[in-house]
């Protein structure tokens, strides 16, 4: 009955795999320059990449239907960990996000879209208002917990990944627009009541970085200088003075895109975006080809979340979105985000390579 496509070596989707490899390679090349040719850092990142690829490979082997059963448990565990963080979490830089060296909120980036997809999978679509409400609660619980930490960036990403599932599930346009209007109207309230001073500061700084050139605006100013001075063709690899001379903060992590733009210029940026776009397109193709609702919603929302990471990161580094701590997927230095991403890609591959052809 089962008829595996022979092209799927080890259940890997070749185009997606190629795209991910290309992106991680570019990431290593840029990291080498951004870290000031720090070999220790490179080795650590390589180890993480291998770990990530390992997780992807393992997940790709498992049929998605088996994994789907685990989704509620995973979600439940994530919520419990988030609650735990509020009590015994480790505080760094003024927010309580860490538990035993990792951020439980990271789990939720996957668990929320999976949970919503799982919940809606066997219901007729588009979902009824009642089910939408339930799904919204699934989204709001972890969001609220993450906001408590406080970590606005992650909360928004978690929220958006959940909402993507709803959008893909066929949420009515009428509802979408009325929600958007409601959001716009309540913005001043949110601004006054829910945003922390530093979050307001970031948004204000975005519109006018010069109001605090050595404080909150420093990141954006230096980042824009790095990007702008790169020009059409860039200053060349290992020649980015903004990063080399350490004017650019967070150059290995969140601001690595500025390093890339400085050294490889607009041309390099276009090439990078093409690769990203290729990966995203392939992902959406897999979503279209998926054979059950859960797979479709899951793959679609993961790909959209992946896109949001890219867009938000590039937007903040190039200075048109506020500075929220979002790394550039597959390029930025850092372990947790990489593991989350590779888990996602593993799931996507599993969806694609375990299809049954009747």
């Amino acid at each position: 009955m089962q008829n595996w496509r022979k092209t799927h070596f080890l259940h890997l989707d070749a185009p997606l795999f190629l795209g991910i490899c290309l992106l991680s390679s570019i990431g290593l090349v840029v990291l080498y320059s951004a870290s000031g040719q720090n070999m220790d850092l490179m080795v650590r990142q390589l180890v993480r990449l291998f770990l990530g690829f390992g997780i992807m490979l393992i997940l790709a082997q498992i049929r998605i239907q088996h994994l789907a059963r685990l989704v509620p448990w995973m979600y439940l565990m994530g919520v419990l960990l988030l609650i735990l963080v509020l009590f015994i979490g480790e505080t760094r830089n003024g927010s309580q996000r860490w538990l035993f060296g990792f951020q439980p909120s990271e789990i939720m980036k996957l668990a929320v879209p999976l949970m919503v997809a799982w919940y809606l999978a066997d219901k007729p679509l588009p979902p009824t208002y009642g089910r939408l409400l339930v799904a919204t609660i699934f989204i709001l619980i972890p969001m609220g917990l993450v906001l408590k930490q406080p970590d606005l960036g992650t909360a928004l990403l978690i929220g958006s990944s959940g909402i993507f599932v709803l959008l893909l599930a066929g949420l009515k346009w009428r509802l979408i627009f009325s929600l958007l209007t409601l959001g716009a109207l309540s913005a001043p309230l949110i601004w006054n009541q829910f945003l922390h001073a530093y979050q307001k500061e970031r948004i204000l700084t975005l519109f006018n970085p010069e109001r605090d050139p050595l404080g909150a605006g420093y990141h954006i100013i230096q980042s824009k200088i790095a990007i702008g001075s790169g020009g059409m063709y860039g200053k060349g690899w290992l020649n980015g003075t903004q990063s080399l001379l350490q004017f650019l903060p967070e150059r290995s992590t969140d601001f690595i895109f500025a390093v890339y733009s400085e050294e490889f210029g607009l041309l390099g940026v276009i090439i990078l975006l093409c690769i990203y776009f290729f990966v995203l397109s392939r992902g959406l193709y897999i979503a279209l080809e998926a054979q059950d609702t859960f797979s479709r919603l899951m793959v679609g929302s993961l790909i959209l979340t992946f896109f949001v990471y890219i867009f938000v990161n590039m937007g903040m580094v190039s200075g048109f979105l506020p500075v929220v701590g979002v790394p550039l997927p597959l390029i930025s230095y850092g372990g947790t985000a990489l593991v989350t991403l590779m888990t996602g890609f593993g799931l996507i591959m599993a969806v694609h390579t375990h299809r049954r052809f009747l």
Partner: protein
Amino acid sequence: MSSTRLILKDSYRENKLFKNRVRLAWLMMLIFFVLIIGRLFFLQVLEHTTYITKSENNRIKILPLPPKRGLIYDRNGVLLADNRVSHSLVLIPEKVNNIDDVLKALSQIITIEPHDIVRFKKQIQQNRRFKAITLRQRLTEDEVARFSVQRRRFPGVDIKSNFSRYYPLGAIGVHAIGYVGRINERELKIIEQSDYIGSNYIGKTGVEKYYEKELHGKTGFQHVETNVQGRVIRILERTPPLSGKNLYLNIDIYLQKYIEEIFVEQRAAVVVIEPNSGGVLALVSMPHYDPNLFVNGIDVKSYLALRDSPERPLINRAIRGQYPPGSTIKAIVGLAGLEYGIITPQSRTWCRGWYTLKGRKHRYRDWKRVGHGSMDLYSAIEQSCDVYFYDLAHELGIDRLHSFMKRFGFGKKTGIDILGEKSGLMPSRAWKRRARGKLWYPGETLITGIGQGFMLSTPLQLAVAAATLGNRGQFKQPRVVFAIDDANINEMSVVPPTQQTTITLKHNSYWDAAINGMKAVVHGRRGTARQVAKNSSYLFAGKTGTAQVIAIKQRERYNASKIAKKFHDHAWFIAFAPLNNPRIAISVIVENGGSGSHTAAPIAKDVMDYYLLPKKPKKISPVVITDH
């Protein structure tokens, strides 16, 4: 998946809906990516020039390279102002693990005072960790040697060397050479600040100040690439500094030293000029002080001691001391009489010991109470007869006297190349009306004729006047600096006197009459200073002078023993030698020194002998500067 639902899933419809949403999502991604590219295009292409400038400004810093200050030599090539390497002990906090341990270990080989440590710790707080912080300044050679041997024990500790001005001869010639010091706020406003970035010193007095522009040189610049902490990564471009120009002075430092050593406790000034060039051979003002005290900032106690000393060592008496010239000007007043036809060399006046104006009772006394008898110009100068010059001045009138004396430089600055010179005072009717608001009295003309009353002159002015007499009217502006040596292009340029005028009289023989009178002062049978020329191997001309400090009442006599020292007369002597084609002109004043003939004249003769006669071997040794 259950199939027993009330509402069945419509697979086809769901699929279509999903496909539409995915297509829409794909389109949105494309649009957003184009948006990002648009943003990047704006930054990287349209605004590229702005950001490349900002990035260059970030990375490139301009560091000044201070120039080496020009050196100062005397006319013999003896070094008067040097740049000495001074060593300081510096520590880079970043490279030292335990600063307290290192300080303890260091204090065993180098003296580190508690206040050094306090200042050092404060500096650490205020500076970046990789910046070298000075722990001790002005290390001794011993300390440098001891540290060098044990340097390995102290990573992050080093000796930094920089140039500091040093005057090897200490106080000798200080009033001519001057000194440099730290730039103060007032000076900061005057100077071109970009020229002084990195310079620590600026000329404060003397030649050091007057020739500041030449001595300072031109600051060089270094474009360096720095990282965000300001640490220099590499040098990109270098414009080397241009060293300051070296100065060669007209001063003969051996002569200068010889003169300065004559005076032990007296307050005095001596100016020696080379008549045919105007070059200042010596410019002495005593007491003097050690300029090295001022270079790196003098401590308050020492400064107050100098400033408030009753001896006023900081005052440059040679150019700023204004004294009544007394009888020293008589030969010139005589010239005025000849020029205006009031007297001839042969015309005679009877001196009975005093002079009275017609219809007045006030007696203007001669220094010789019994009088000199019949006087012509020659004998009146020789014996310094006051009555002769009272009469002459009366006939001349103050205005003619004023304009004639002005031609010899009285009442105006000589224009010497040292700042702060005083112009003295040559009174006139107009001056008195202006300055005092009063009419001129005929009696005031009389005393002006013997260099008393309102008239004031500086030792420099009198030396210039003596030189002008010796030159028979050739007035040369006095110059301390002889030549400027631009070491950068190996070019030596001689500084010419900027002002040279010739005083022409109706008859050249008038000069002989005046000069002969001055010759008689020292060589004549009745000369007031005849003792000093007794065994002179050369002929010369001189004139004694005694400047009254307090007025003596009509019936009183001047009695030095009854008057406090500070009210004693100032002793003057001016001279030039040899008589024909003089090589040296001199003025000497000894404050409260008594009579010119006894106090000032022997000094002048001694100085002329030293300069003109074959010399003993010269030796001059640098003074050792102790650490203050």
